[in-house]
């Protein structure tokens, strides 16, 4: 391996990594918001809207991000919706991640037993109070591991952004390999940078899961 080459490429990768993380985090934030909204719609069985949400979740979960991005980036401009690669990446990630987050939140909400709500009602709480004081704190705890797993999944999916010519890590690696043929160094840097981004989240995830499993709630 040629360390001169690595030193030379490092700033390019750094720039690409920052972009990857920035767009990834932005997309994940939107995914969390969409997911929470969808999960609430399903939990409280809001008529009509829940059908739309169910359809969205099926469509989003059963198609790859690649075609979602292609459709947003190359297809939608033909009917007048034009996006920059950055906006397209964030929108695609939010569209994909929203359904995964919805499932994570929904499993958390469903894990709270009905008797908890009934106890809250029996103590005179109304729906809103029961949700914020009793259901949400418990659901949030059980949702944590799948939410973190989804965050990792979505950060990994950002590697597909390069398909819509975003200058992310993948794009940078492929570009440099194409021009200079320093394949080994380029791939090495690619792996290292993804490890730097993903390893902390992954470790956090397994710590969280362990804590919940051993100190967990339940009777």
């Amino acid at each position, binding site marked *: 391996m040629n360390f001169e080459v690595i030193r030379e490429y490092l700033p390019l990768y750094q720039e690409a990594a920052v972009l990857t993380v920035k767009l990834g985090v932005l997309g994940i934030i939107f995914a969390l918001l969409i997911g929470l909204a969808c999960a609430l719609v399903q939990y409280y069985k809001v008529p009509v809207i829940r059908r739309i949400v169910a359809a969205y979740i*099926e*469509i989003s*979960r*059963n*198609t*790859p*991000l*690649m*075609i*979602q991005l*292609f*459709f947003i980036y*190359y*297809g*939608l*401009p*033909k*009917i007048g919706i034009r996006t920059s690669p950055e906006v397209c990446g964030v929108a695609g990630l939010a569209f994909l991640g929203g359904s995964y987050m919805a499932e994570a939140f929904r499993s958390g909400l469903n894990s709270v037993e009905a008797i908890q709500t009934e106890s809250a009602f029996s103590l005179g709480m109304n729906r809103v109070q029961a949700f914020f004081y009793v259901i949400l704190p418990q659901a949030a705890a059980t949702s944590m591991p799948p939410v973190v797993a989804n965050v*990792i999944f979505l950060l*990994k*999916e*950002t*590697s*597909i952004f*390069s*398909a819509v010519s975003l200058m992310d890590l*993948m794009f940078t*690696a*492929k570009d440099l*390999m194409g021009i200079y043929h320093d*394949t*080994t160094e380029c*791939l090495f840097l*690619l*792996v290292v940078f*993804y*490890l730097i981004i*993903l*390893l902390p989240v*992954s470790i956090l995830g397994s710590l969280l899961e362990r804590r919940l499993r051993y100190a967990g709630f339940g009777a």
Partner: protein
Amino acid sequence: MPDLGLNIIFKGKNFARLLGGLGVALRISLIAVAISIPLGLILGILMTRKNPILKAILRLYLDFIRIMPQMVLLFLVFFGTTRSFGWNLSGENAAIIVFSLWGTAEMGDLVRGALIAIPRHQYESAQSLGLSPAQTQIYIIIPQTVRRLLPLSINLITRMIKTTSLVLMIGVVEVIKVAQQIIEANRMKTPNGAFGVYLFVFILYFLACWPISMAARYLEKKWR
């Protein structure tokens, strides 16, 4: 109403070509799944063994494969092997290798999870009924494991199909690539073809994955 390219899908051999492209994606995923499931079973069982060295090695493999984006793995195998070993892998073969490695890791983790999820007292009560270890496995443990595993392994197929969309990036001509070619060829007559053609591919992917997801969910509900 501008021409959004829905008609070029059905022009000439385009429809058949798109289906053929999807066929390539499906072929890669099915071969990879067929390799992953048996290897994953072995991996999963090995991971429940007590040997610490074996465990550490398998853990490392599993964690590396699962933490790396599949696209990075594809690049490593496709570009990396050419460089290091002088192999000249076709994109499709590289894809099958990568997705099998990935699928094995995912499947191995599912198997391990299903095995450790079986409560201890299942083994104990089987033993106290006088069943031999082999009988315990055959009548008690394996049926329960399969029930937990089957829906998850079916889900792995849909994940695999979705992941095959990545092979576009290493030059395999699959459905999105075919779509690109069709749009390109009709650029003059149907400048807005990208909308219709990509929408069609979007629907194709959905039609390929959705029934499989539904089957997995049905089994999960039935066996809960």
